[in-house]
């Protein structure tokens, strides 16, 4: 099960996915991020505190925006990941490409 909330804290948009992200629902996450980008969001933050599990398909969603966002000047950051989920990002090496922060404050302050 996955539910995604979107909050706006000007100028940032915060996505709050809750539950497990796997192949069956990664499309939801993809749509949420794409909608924000299409609406002109320049800073997207993902609150990972409620992500219980992320599969390779979920990681694929984040991965697929790397180049596009770089070109369009959109910043994507992730914060408050649980150790287990963070480990998945680290193993794949995504932490080298997407800025991941321990908590929200750090993410907001970083450029």
């Amino acid at each position: 099960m996955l539910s995604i909330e979107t909050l706006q804290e000007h100028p940032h948009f915060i996505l709050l996915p809750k539950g497990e992200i796997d192949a069956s629902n990664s499309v939801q996450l993809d749509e949420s991020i794409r909608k924000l980008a299409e609406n002109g969001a320049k800073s997207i933050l993902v609150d990972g505190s409620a992500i219980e599990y992320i599969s390779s398909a979920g990681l694929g969603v984040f991965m697929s925006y790397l180049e596009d966002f770089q070109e369009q000047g959109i910043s994507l950051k992730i914060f408050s990941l649980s150790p287990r989920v963070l480990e998945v990002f680290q193993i794949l090496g995504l932490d080298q490409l997407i800025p991941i922060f321990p908590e929200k404050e750090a993410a907001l302050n970083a450029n």
Partner: protein
Amino acid sequence: MIKLPTIHIGRLSLLLSILVWLALLFVDLVRLFGVINNLNSGIAAEFTWVLEILFFLTVYFFYNYNLQKNAQNEFLNLLWRAASTGIFASAAFLVIQVFYQFLGDSKLGQEPFLRNFFYHVHFALISIFLISTTLLWKKLILYQKTKQVVQQWQTYEIGLLIAMFFVFFSQNTFGYSFIFGFVILTVLGGFLSVNLKWIPYLTFKEKWKSLLFLAIIIICSVYLFLQTNAYSSAQQTYPINLLDNLFLISLYIFILIYALFSFLVTLFNLPTSSVFEQKLTEAINFQRLSQSIQPDEDEEKVLDILMDSSMSASFADGAWLEMYQTDRDQAILQTRWIEEKEREELSKLIESNSAAQNWAKESKADLLNPLPLKISHPKFGSLLLVPLVINKSVIGRMVLCKELKDGFNKEMVSIIETFARQASISVENHRLLNQAIQNERYQEELKIAQRVQKALLPNNLDHNKDFEICAYSNAADEVGGDYYDTFQLDQHRYAIIIGDVSGKGTSAAFHMAQMKGVFQSLIQLNLSPKEFMIRSNAALSRCLERNHFITASIFIIDTLHHQVCHARAGHVPTLFYRSGNQKAEYLGIGGLGLGILRNMQYEKHVEEKEFTYHSGDILVLFTDGIVEAKNQKSQQFGFERIRALVEINYHLSPKEIQAKLIDTLHDFVGGDGLIDDDYSLLVVKFN
């Protein structure tokens, strides 16, 4: 054992009846000889009567058997058999009469023995005609029989049997008892004669034929009856009376009554037979519609039958059928007796009709009934719109046109509605069946894919005596995205790779096959692990979908120098057990998954490391399916369990270690818990 020859009842009874008849003839001729010469032949009349009864019975058995054997019992055929027997008997009779006319008063004409011979021939012919016709009537009477009718018939047969023996009692004289028996049998026969259920099933043409046959039967039986009476009145030279028999006379009356009834009822049924035929055709059409279409046939065949049946049920002058393909796009499938121009005119009239508009808008397709319309068109006066509903949606409509105004009555509409429903069900079944066949084919294709994919994983893992290796892989679906392979670079050097494609199922399987191609091509270039990953990333970046990536770990084992060189691309870390300190640890090395960074930047994100191995050291390569396998409490199997298991079981062979790991994994997940990801495991142990 003595094998008894099989008794042929038909032939036996025929032979017996001929023998009995000859015996009867002989006995009576002997008696006649006695009468003429005033000698007492000493033969009692009862003897003749016994032979007579025997003759009746054998003829009865012969015909009963004969009729049962001939399964072809069409009504007309039965009638024709009775009529032909009658004609034959009458003709034989006529010939005898002509013969006597010809002889006139000559001596031969007066010869009593010859006369007696012909008397017996006559007796035989009449008996055969009466008994065979009665048996044919029995067939007709017992058509669609009820228990009651069968009982009536059996009573009648018992009555007839008694009548055969009546002659012993009455001594061949007319009396009240004779009349009493005769009346009872006639009444019983009359009761049976109302069973005429076969008549409605004749077609119009068949009715005419049966009228002809019945007329022949009536004429023949009347003629034969009169002749019998003529014999009876001229009794001078016949020593014994065979014909004034209650049995025979009752049969005469019965045959005559039934033939008359049948004749009259058939005659009066003639005008209504078209209605009955119509109903019968409708029933047959309905049956044809309900027969499911074969998968290789077209559903048009059913629609064809629907059109024909509906048109014949409503006497329509024209019709067409249209199927809605997509919104507003209509395909005219079939037209009957109607010009394209007329059809277009009528379509416009329908569209402008408000009732038809409402009808077309009806949202609940189940409630849609055929709609009769009045229209003002130079040729046609009324229309009937019939919906074809499949799975609660209207898939098409049939339009029936009649030149008459108000041409469609309630009965027609309801039968056509039934036809349309049945046709819709047939079409739906046909579609479902095709879908099922399609699905089965997909299943079959998936099985092939599974087989092909299994073949992509190596059967024999390259190694030499310096290390042992074993592997295991399991896919969550039919096909999966896990990959492992080996390659012998030279005499002492071996490459081992394990990989995992993001996602699972068919798309993962395709990418896995690409990975195999990349590995098998690049590994031959004798690249270092890091260089291998960089080139793989470049190659895969061109063929992976945007949101897909592959993780992999590659190891190059040099058994001459006891060195292992490796690189990791986003793959779960490999466990390395050192026999020196009896500890296992995960190899810490950085590296980004393949296909994530699709440019030259990737070079910065991959490393290469080298280490020395010793005898007893173990490498455990696996995919994340094992680490992330969850038990019922949603706990992951995790890296720690694998590490601990290897430390405990280090002394076992790779195969045993592998089995231990997989068994423990299954126990952890729980009895019927499923691991919903692909998982693979490779164990290498150095000697």
